[in-house]
C-alpha cells in the first residue's frame, strides 16, 4: 500500500522527509498563532487554555526538531549543509531532479 502511494506521488523515499518538514512548519506556525492569540486574550479561562496549548506546542516542536536532527533531515547548526539540503528539496519539488 505504501509503495503504491509512494509511486503515485512520485516522491519515493522523500515522503517521510516531506511529512516531517510539513510537521515542523505546522508546529512552528502553531506556536506563533497560539502566542498571538494569548496576547489578545483577557478572559482568565481563555488565557489558561491558550497558555497550556502554547506549552504543548513548544514541547511538540522540540520533539519534532530533535527527531529531524537525529535523522539528518534538519541541520540548524550547519548552514552550508542545510542550504544544500534545501536546494536538493527545491529541485525535487520543482521536478527537476
Amino acid at each position, binding site marked *: 500500500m*505504501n509503495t503504491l502511494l509512494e509511486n503515485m506521488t512520485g516522491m519515493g523515499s522523500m*515522503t517521510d522527509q516531506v511529512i516531517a518538514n510539513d510537521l515542523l512548519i505546522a508546529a512552528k506556525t502553531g506556536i506563533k498563532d497560539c502566542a498571538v492569540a494569548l496576547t489578545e486574550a*483577557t*478572559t482568565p479561562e481563555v488565557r489558561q*487554555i491558550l497558555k497550556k496549548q502554547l506549552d504543548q506546542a513548544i514541547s511538540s516542536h522540540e520533539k519534532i526538531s530533535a527527531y529531524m536532527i537525529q535523522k539528518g533531515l534538519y541541520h540548524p547548526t550547519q548552514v552550508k549543509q542545510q542550504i544544500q539540503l534545501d536546494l536538493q528539496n527545491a529541485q525535487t519539488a520543482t521536478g527537476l531532479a
Partner: protein
Amino acid sequence: MNATTQSPQAQTIGAVNLATHEILEMRELLSSKNVCLTKSATMQALASDPELKTLLQQDVQQSKQAIQELSAILSKV
C-alpha cells in the same frame, strides 16, 4: 464574568463573557487545529518510519484535546 470553574476541565466553564476579538481569535485557532488534525491523521497512513508515525499520533491526540477545549469555550458563546 460569572465563570464557575469546578475543575480544570474546560467543559465545566459556565457562561463566560468573551470579548468579540477573543471569539475571533479562538475560532481562528480552532479551524487551524482542525486542519492540523486532519492532516496528521492522513499523514500517519503515508509515513513509513515508526518514529515519525508516533510523532504524528501524538500530534493527533494533542490536536483532539485542543479542539475539545476550544469547542467547549466557543459553544458557550
